């Protein structure tokens, strides 16, 4: 793909590798251009992670606006239109801007290191997929300043709210989502091509670390469903601008069709956001329990089953649209079926811990919190899967509690666990233990204070996406808001830990953690810009 370069000294700092210009004058670009043109998987991985962190804070600020408005009943801070834009943008940015790029960043950094590849298979495409993202999200954020405001129809952008009744900026929203989608698709192609073709000699698929496995399956999901999302938003675009009637009953279309198409994308999408988290936790728990992962093969099959089942459950988001009884039952049972492979995973993690020699370093703290709190989110998911019960829970704060439990102490905690786990490899320094522990405990307390009361307010009937509420929900919302402020503020500690770790700290050896076995721990810490120029010798350890 890229022109060949002479081998470079491993600790060379400014070698932005293989872009065409760099090869011509043998001096890699410096300053901003270095980052703009880099094709190095580690630099692109860092860019993704930094981008994801920035988006996490922007989306977080929007969440703070929402929680501040909901601090007490009545309308006090923002008007309802702006409130709607805040909930919508919070969801869109966290899903497409923070969690997905966060995992792609970890994949860029770690997949080549874990399979002994010198770089991603398509380095220049990799650069392109990253730089699409800042453009897409600048465009998305700019809609907030446009006349009529930004998207205000919820992150699920149901038609006709997002077509007939949408603000004029919706066309920009569609374009930015198209760009983010193309970025994910290209990233997925790159990851599949890397994993399938660039593994170290002797590494079979069933020898791969689970983070690589879960990302391989995630990438297939992305390729299968991102085009469906692209199709849906293209139909919206045509309904808005070209007079078609895909979702407009007046011209023979159907708004319910939108929901089917959206959730056909949307449900695999939620597994796209959690499968790599399973992979990270499956790397961390064995390391700090000092035992090999229990049931490696069953973990792989469970991940694949979850991915396949995710295509058969989409209508459980739509129990209340008036599905026929047969469909309600079908989607109820398939949804409950997903609890089986997920349960296999949770039990495997617990069994790995069983009689392990456990120590509680920061990554392990987050991984353990993940197992417990994600399971709580899984259980409330099972409650929501019960179709008749869902008629009551639908569109209440119970749903909000459910998906925040699987996404915040689920996906986000897993990303943080991964960051703490691999920071020594990236920077050569251990993260400050005391500060990491503060970050962990403040986050755990904040997350639970925020989201646990939402179960109760939801069961009592508080609807989601409403800027005001009845008086009886006041106490729950007060607690939720205080918890949210605590959680939001404690993420500043996380930034402090990362910045301090980049600048210095206790030096880490190549094998930074005692029980860590995968290939990334065989290269020095910090990992030099170019690793595995010659493939490593790989000897499969028994899983």
């Amino acid at each position, binding site marked *: *793909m*890229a*022109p*060949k*370069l002479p*081998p470079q000294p491993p600790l060379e700092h400014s070698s932005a*590798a*293989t872009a065409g210009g760099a090869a011509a004058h043998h001096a890699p670009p410096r300053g901003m251009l270095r980052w703009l043109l880099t094709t190095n998987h580690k630099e692109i991985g860092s860019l993704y992670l930094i981008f994801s962190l920035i988006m996490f804070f922007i989306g977080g600020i929007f969440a703070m606006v929402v929680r501040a408005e909901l601090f007490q009943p009545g309308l006090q801070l923002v008007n309802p239109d702006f409130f709607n834009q805040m909930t919508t943008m919070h969801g869109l940015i966290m899903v497409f801007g923070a969690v997905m790029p966060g995992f792609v960043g970890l994949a860029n950094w770690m997949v080549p290191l874990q399979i002994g590849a*010198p*770089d991603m*298979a*398509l*380095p220049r495409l990799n650069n392109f997929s990253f730089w699409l993202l800042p453009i897409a999200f600048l465009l998305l954020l700019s809609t907030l300043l446009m006349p009529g405001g930004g998207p205000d129809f919820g992150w699920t952008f149901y038609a006709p709210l997002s077509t007939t009744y949408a603000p004029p900026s919706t066309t920009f929203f569609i374009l930015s989502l198209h760009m983010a989608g193309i970025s994910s*698709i290209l990233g*997925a*192609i790159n990851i*599949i*091509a890397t994993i*399938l*073709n*660039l593994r170290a*000699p002797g590494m079979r698929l069933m020898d791969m670390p689970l983070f690589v496995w879960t990302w391989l399956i995630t990438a297939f999901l992305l*390729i*299968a*469903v*991102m*085009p*469906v999302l*692209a*199709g*849906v938003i293209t*139909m919206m675009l045509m309904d808005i601008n070209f*007079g*078609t*009637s*895909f979702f407009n*009953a*007046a*011209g*023979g279309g*159907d708004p*319910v*069709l939108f929901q*089917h*198409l959206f959730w*056909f994308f949307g449900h695999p999408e939620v597994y796209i956001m959690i499968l790599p988290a399973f992979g990270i936790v499956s790397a961390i728990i064995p390391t700090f329990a000092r035992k090999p992962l229990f049931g490696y093969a069953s973990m792989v099959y469970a991940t694949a089953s979850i991915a396949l089942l995710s295509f058969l459950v989409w209508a459980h988001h739509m129990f209340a649209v*008036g*599905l*026929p009884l047969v*469909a309600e039952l079908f989607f109820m049972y398939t949804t409950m079926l997903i609890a089986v492979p997920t349960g296999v995973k949770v039990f495997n993690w617990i069994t790995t811990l069983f009689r392990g020699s456990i120590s509680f370093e920061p990554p392990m703290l987050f991984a353990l919190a993940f197992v417990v709190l994600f399971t709580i989110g899984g259980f409330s998911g099972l409650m929501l899967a019960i179709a008749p019960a869902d008629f009551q829970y639908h569109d209440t704060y119970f749903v909000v509690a459910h998906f925040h439990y699987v996404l915040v102490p689920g996906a986000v905690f897993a990303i943080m666990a991964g960051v703490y786990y691999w920071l020594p490899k990236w920077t050569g320094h251990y993260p400050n233990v005391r500060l990491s522990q503060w970050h962990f405990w403040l986050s755990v307390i904040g997350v639970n204070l925020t989201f646990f009361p939402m179960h109760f307010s939801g069961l009592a009937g508080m609807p989601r996406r409403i800027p005001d509420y009845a008086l009886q929900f006041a106490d729950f919302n007060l607690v939720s808001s205080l918890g949210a402020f605590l959680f939001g503020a404690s993420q500043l500690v996380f930034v402090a830990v990362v910045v301090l770790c980049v600048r210095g700290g206790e030096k880490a050896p190549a094998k930074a953690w005692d029980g860590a076995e995968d290939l990334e721990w065989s290269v020095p810490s910090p990992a030099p810009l*170019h690793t595995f*120029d*010659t*493939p490593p010798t790989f000897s499969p350890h028994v899983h």
Partner: protein
Amino acid sequence: MSHRDHGATDSHKLGVRRTVVRSVAALIGMFAFAFALVPLYDVFCQVTGINGKVDNTAQAIIHEGVDDSRYVTVQFITRGSSGLPWRLEVETRQVRVHPGQTSEINFTFRNQSAEASRARAVPSVSPSRASRHLRKVSCFCFDEQHLEAGERLELPLVFQLARDLPPDVNTVTLVYTLYPVTDARAPRRAQVTAGKGDEA
């Protein structure tokens, strides 16, 4: 790729190319699939009667004898549309019929504005299970209507509930929603649907 200077490079390149070609093919396939779902969804809903979609074509009366043993209540609901100064009224909100019996109900369209305009009434049946057993012999909903300023137009709906209507369905609700017809596309689409059922 760039740093693989050993013999494996070519086979890696081939492998990567093959993976990329296959992924792109899958991508294009899924994008097309999303659009294919639109007609598939319509067909699926019409065949199964899910979603209250009714066959929007004239159907012949079946002379199968009237089932005197039971009554079914048929309710009519009419709804206007924002941005369309029309009213749609039905002469009676509710009738009781026997399955197999043919009934005629009159609907009144009224254009309340000072401008001529076109609109279309789109039907929906609830419960959706009943939609396959509702046979419309003639209906204003098969075509779009054109009304001059202030014009009033009375149009009939002739329908029959088939005798095989599930026994637990005692009430059938027909909802007509008025939609403005603004561009040339919508009526063409309606006619295509109407053409299919001509021989019925």
